[in-house]
Every structure is written in C-alpha cells, then in structure tokens.
C-alpha cells in the first residue's frame, strides 16, 4: 500500500498498451489503493463484510438479469481459441486472425452482478444483508478518455439486500458517506439524477427511469461521475429468488465508486498526482 517512490522507472515511464488501457505508475497506483482503502470506510460503517466476486459471469445468469436487453453493447466476452487453432498458434500464426469460441462467460461490467448471482435462492432475512467488494470491471465503449473512461477499471460497491425501507436507508447513508469523504479529500461534488447507459435510450426501461430516477451520481467539476447510489426495487430479488424473510422478494440497492475516477478527481482538484497523494495521505492519517 505504501508508495514505491524509490522505485526508479525507465526514462519515459511505463507504456500504455492502447486506448482504454492504462498501466498505472507508482504514484497513480498509490492513489488508487489509498482511495479504495478510504472507500472501504463505507463498508466498515455499514458492517458490510468484504468479499471477492467471481472473475467471470455466466451469460445465462446475466440474461436472467436482462443484462443483454439493457446493455448488449457493453459486454466484453471471454473467448477461447478453437482446438483447431492451437496447432497454428503453436507454430507462430498471428493470434489476431484465428477464431475464438465463446465460453459462455463475460468479464464483469459491474461488481454487484457477481455478488447478486451468488445469492440466488437465499433468504437474507428482514434485517437484510450487506456485502462489499472491489472488482475490475470491463465495458466496451465508443471512446476512451484517460482515467475517466477505461476499457477496464476498478469498481467498489457496497450492496444491500433486504426490505424496501432498508434499501432507502442504505442509500441515504451511502450518500452521506460520499459527501463526508469528498469534504475530507477536498473534492467538490455535485449530485444529480442519472441514466444507466442503456442501449435503447428510448425504450421502456429508459423512459420509466426518466420519470422515476433510480440512480443518482456524484460528479467532479469537469462532469466526471465518480460515485453513484442506485436502487433496484425488488428486481434482483424476484429474478434470483432472493427473499427478505416474510417481506417476500428482497429489495436491493448499491453504492458504487469508480476508483480510477476518484484518482482523476483528486488530480483535477489538487493539480498533480503527487499533490493529490499528499492530500490523500493527510486525509488517511
């Protein structure tokens, strides 16, 4: 977790592999880890145990959550070379030209999906259940932009499942935490209703969301959304048969943080990565 400021990098630093793909240098890495450690404060405050979600999600599970109906464009698929391609690869053929076979799995595009799917068929009781995790998430985007829009990024979530009222309280506490933490870090954030990145922006779900927002985002002064509070009503509870005791299908809600975007917001607010790190360390001490 400590910075490796004594680690010398070669002249010119670390190369980035391509659009949407960044290799974080030691200072950015210290910011990322330090900020994520602060973000776990919400999990600690809400007694949400830390878990590690699965690295891949089944397309069957995602389909049951309407993932492909809502976000067909985002999914980054895990493929495997066909057996026929292996000899060619071993003989030095260009991998980019060889066929891939679907594995039935996608890389996660949000941290909570893997947690929700792991709770299928459970009764979380009327007291509800909270879980927290950070996962690397992947989304195909039409453009990439520094730390603001990446092909793969870290998303920390604090998830709640339980009663309707419990879900409301979870988001209230989450929003309060975001405001407190922003104050501590010297970040100026504005809160506004937001849309999920639906493929069909004129479709039924998007239209209802416009009338009854279920997502609020906290954004840095340049418009970068760095945190969101999201309520799902009892959608996941119904689809995955997760119950809240006698209350029936569980209501769920999550507080989500895009960790690289917190790094971006810190640099934006404090001028340089080094100054951002000084401020972060002061906040953590």
């Amino acid at each position, binding site marked *: 977790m400590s910075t490796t400021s004594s680690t010398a990098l070669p002249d010119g630093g670390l190369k980035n592999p391509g659009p949407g793909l960044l290799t974080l240098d030691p200072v950015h890495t210290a910011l990322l880890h330090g900020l994520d450690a602060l973000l776990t404060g919400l999990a600690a405050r809400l007694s949400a145990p830390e878990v590690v979600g699965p690295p891949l999600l089944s397309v069957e599970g995602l389909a049951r959550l309407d993932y492909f109906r809502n976000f067909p464009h985002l999914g980054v698929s895990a493929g495997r070379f066909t057996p026929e391609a292996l000899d060619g690869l071993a003989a030095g053929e260009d991998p980019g030209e060889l066929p891939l076979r679907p594995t039935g799995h996608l890389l996660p595009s949000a941290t909570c999906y893997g947690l929700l799917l792991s709770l299928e068929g459970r009764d979380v009781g009327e007291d509800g259940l909270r879980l927290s995790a950070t996962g690397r998430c992947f989304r195909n985007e039409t453009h990439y932009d520094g730390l603001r829009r990446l092909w793969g990024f870290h998303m920390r979530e604090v998830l709640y499942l339980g009663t309707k009222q419990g879900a409301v309280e979870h988001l209230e506490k989450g929003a309060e935490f975001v405001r407190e933490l922003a104050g501590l870090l010297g970040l100026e954030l504005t809160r506004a209703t937001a849309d999920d990145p639906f493929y069909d922006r004129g479709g039924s779900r998007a239209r209802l969301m416009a*009338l009854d927002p279920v997502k609020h985002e906290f954004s840095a002064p340049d418009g970068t959304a760095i945190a969101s509070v999201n309520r799902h009503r009892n959608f996941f509870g119904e689809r995955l048969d997760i119950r809240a005791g006698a209350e029936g299908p569980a209501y769920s809600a999550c507080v989500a943080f895009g960790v690289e975007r917190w790094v971006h917001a810190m640099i934006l607010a404090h001028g340089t990565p080094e100054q951002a790190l000084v401020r972060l360390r002061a906040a953590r001490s």
Partner: protein
Amino acid sequence: MERIAEWLHEKNPGLDGPIDVDEDLIEARLIDSMDFLEFIDLLEEISGDTIDLQEVTIDDFRTLSRVERRFLTPSGAAAAPGPATTG
C-alpha cells in the same frame, strides 16, 4: 379498470387475488420497467387519449386509484371510467 387489472395479472402470474387500489405498482414492480411503455399504450387505448410523458409524473402511475383519477376519469366529454371498448 378491469382491463388494467387483467393486464397486471397477466404480467404477474404469481399474484393472488385483487390488487389493492392503493398498492404501489411501481415500487412493487407490478408494472415492470420493461413493460412500462406497453402499459402506457394500454392506458392510451382505454382512454382514447395520447399520454405525453413530458406532462406526467411517476406518481400518476403509482396506484390504481391514481391511474383512474389521472387517465380514466373524464374531465370533459370523455367516456365514463371503467371498461372501455377496444380500439
């Protein structure tokens, strides 16, 4: 209102018995977000009026009693509330 109740039961086969007129249809997801536009179509068909989504709020759809008051109660010379002829 019968057609609306029928539609809700069709969409929610697990529902037992009548739906309370004050039940929150949105929060309980008896109107699922995927079916929301179909519900609007149904209301337009029953009322014979178009619904401009810029001029409504979510509360207009929240309960059966609100739906009836907002969309199916004649403010002028429209049809009486209740089952209407299909278009």
